[in-house]
């Protein structure tokens, strides 16, 4: 039942944020197809360390598709060729024997490279800090069942909230736009009564921060939603536009 393949990994190596990067190709033999892609990078790193070379730096943590830490632009797709899955959920059975796999970091002005395949996504935190919350202090909440929320709204809010903040939308977008990410958070709150009170302030603040940080403008190509590992829908962006326009019009 063990199938193995050999692959060439063409990986972007860059020593630091200011250094010049380049592709380096590594050959790996006999990788079992039920190995995950990140485990394949582990194997490569193990071999590099054995040879006394520096291992490839890449972000990863939970390895079950939920923390949003892993990134990688693999063969032209953020999180690789599988849809609805993160890089850590990508298995080698997706690749052919002898294939050359090109691995690049997220490329966007707002996500500078830290080292090799690792980028700085702190801009996402800054957008959230600008208003991605409901303003109240711990202990001040009423009983959880005091506000009934329709199941439809709750489910839709949940779908929007399932964004993992990995940045694949920005990586996939030819404009480096963060609209899908911002819209997911704005939508979650816009759909729930808890978020209504400061909805206008929130959407304006988050969008302003997004623009400030140098993300691009959305041109509705939809690559973000097509590549999103959590299948966040484009309709969130329409909702964000709606919320923003109505907030601005009521100024």
């Amino acid at each position, binding site marked *: *039942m*063990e199938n193995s393949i050999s692959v060439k990994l063409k990986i972007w190596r860059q020593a630091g944020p200011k250094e010049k990067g380049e592709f380096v190709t590594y050959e790996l033999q006999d*990788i*079992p197809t039920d*190995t*995950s892609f990140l*485990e394949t990078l*582990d194997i490569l790193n*193990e071999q*590099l*360390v*054995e040879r006394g*070379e*520096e*291992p490839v*730096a890449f972000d*990863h*943590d*939970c*390895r*079950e*598709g*939920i*923390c*949003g830490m892993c990134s990688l632009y693999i063969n032209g797709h953020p999180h690789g060729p*599988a849809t*609805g899955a993160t890089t850590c*959920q990508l*298995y080698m*059975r997706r690749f052919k024997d002898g294939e050359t796999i090109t691995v690049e970091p997220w490329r966007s002005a707002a996500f500078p490279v*830290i*080292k090799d395949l*690792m980028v700085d996504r*702190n801009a996402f*935190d800054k957008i959230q*800090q*600008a*208003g*991605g*919350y*409901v303003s*109240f202090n*711990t*202990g001040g*909440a*009423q009983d*959880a*069942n005091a506000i009934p*929320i*329709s*199941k439809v709204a709750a*489910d839709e*809010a*949940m779908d929007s*909230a*399932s964004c993992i*903040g990995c940045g694949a939308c920005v990586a996939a977008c030819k404009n480096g736009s963060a609209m899908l990410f911002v819209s997911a958070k704005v939508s979650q709150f816009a759909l*729930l009564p*808890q*978020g209504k009170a400061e909805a206008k302030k929130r959407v304006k603040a988050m969008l302003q921060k997004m623009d400030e940080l140098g993300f691009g403008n959305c041109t509705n190509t939809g690559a973000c939603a097509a590549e999103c590992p959590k299948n966040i829908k484009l309709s969130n962006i329409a909702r964000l536009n709606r919320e923003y326009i109505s907030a601005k019009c009521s100024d």
Partner: protein
Amino acid sequence: MEENIKNNVAQPVIDSKIPEGPVAEKWTNYKAHQKLVNPANKRRLDIIVVGTGLAGASAAATLGEMGFKVMNFCIQDSPRRAHSIAAQGGINAAKNYQNDGDSVYRLFYDTVKGGDYRAREANVYRLAEVSNNIIDQCVAQGVPFAREYGGLLANRSFGGAQVSRTFYAKGQTGQQLLLGAYSSLNRQIEMGNVTSYNRYEMHDVVIIDGRARGIIAKNLVTGQLERFAAHAVVIATGGYGNTYFLSTNAMACNVSAAMACYRKGAYFANPAYVQIHPTCIPRHGDKQSKLTLMSESLRNDGRIWVPKNIEDAKRLQAGEIKGSDIPEEERDYYLERRYPAFGNLVPRDVASRAAKERCDKGYGVNNTGQAVFLDFSEAINRLGIDVVRQRYGNLFDMYEEITDVNPGELANEINGVNYYNPMMIYPAIHYTMGGIWVDYELQTSIKGLFAIGECNFSDHGANRLGASALMQGLADGYFVLPYTIQNYLSDQITVPRFSTDLPEFEETEERVQAELDALMNIKGNRSVDSIHKELGNIMWDYVGMGRTKESLEIALQKIKDLRKEFETNLFIPGTQDGMNIELDKAFRLRDFITMGELIAYDALNREESCGGHFREEHQTEEGEAKRDDENFFYVACWKYNGDDEKAPSLIKEPLHYEAIKVQTRNYKN
């Protein structure tokens, strides 16, 4: 070795600071009489919170809201990525929204019983008490919990309980709760009350005059050590499951912060209590980096089985037949058989051991013989595939992505009964109940040093029930620590801010730097991971699900040898300038080795079976865990003796139960 432990019983008195009064009134009494810090003084007090999981983020946010100046440290690139995010199933609370007889007392009772009567009663009662506030808090934050059509919150049942008290947000409850805490944290960062340090790792705690006054943390991007001073230090750095190399923990989860505290004199309590989760995807190959958990909620509708006949098992192992080829009457639903009252919903430790028992007898169902089936045929036939997919669709997809098998796919029909592909599961290291010892105020044995969440030992006893980890993390962070820490800080208001130029900071940083230099200078031949894997194998084989005196002694010897190997034959490429992932991993591995030893010491000392700790010498004729309340009704606190090579000393905190009668756990009837 044992001699060593017994000789070291110079018993300092342990003061767990449990308030007076009946268990149901203790927390109310405490809050009524504790000392507080007035708002003007809060601004003058700095608090360091290490970790941004449920406990860390909620504590940092709440302390910020109160007006303290908080510094919050996070090992990942964003606070939102802490491993709390991976919790799937849900969070318990005694709301009794389902009118099925739940109450604070019942949640308290279930938790103590689930913990095999090894938790501290007063802490658990407080946990159950504040559980309801947590749900209110999270709903107000905009956490999109599942709801009924009427608009009210939905619940589901979970292992170890007979009521439906678990609140959930799809299969991503941990994620949603963490994002809730992260949103509150963000608000405080925006307001300037919390400063967030991402990609920083705590390397040591700084003690001045016997009190924790700061930390030395490494900026993982620049590779530089930095000093941070504060009036109090809170560590919320999670558990030590990665000691076993393969676990369901995230790759960055480590025990270094806790070990730093331990080496500085904080007691480490009950390290042997390690939870092994019954429903993980079985191991494959030696290239694996971690184990993937399948939510325990699957046990609500999934039935666990192995073949009745050993011949069928052998054919499964040889790959000649598939699970769906075995008809209903040839299947042994061993949990339903052994535990009729709870069936597939027995607590995790019981389910895990039962799986191991079957596999040890040769009934394992995959090529390694280390797997059992989790089957949805009955549920799909009863409810239809659509309903089942609605409940577990994302888990089915996840399982298929990893294993290439779709559990929702019709595979066979025998005598008119439809059989679907069963999942294969096997237990894996998941959560650690043990941790830094804390008193009722969540303060460690070092003044001014607090530990919250999985990182402390306090609430789960010897075994944790499903959906209780999220509850504990948030209880500690939102509702307990922000109160109790004031009791400590109230007499610190006259203490001015500390300079990081103090000799204690200098000395601590120098020592950490020397340790890092030492690691770099070994220049041996082995990678960090290869040694870590070896440690993991020792731990799993000798300090795993079933332990014996003999296996533990072997483990201690092997770990000692491994430490030698680590100290003499490690190789780290690169330099200390800038990011060096291998160096970071090596630093963590050094602490995992010490942690592994500590687990083994505690397991060796605890000559009984309870919860997640199973000593094969101590079991009933039916193979159930046999506790020894007469001799082991205590919290085992381990004190560092100045050197990793030296055995730690044992200090006992006796347990006192007032509200609950200690009895044998029974999930049979």
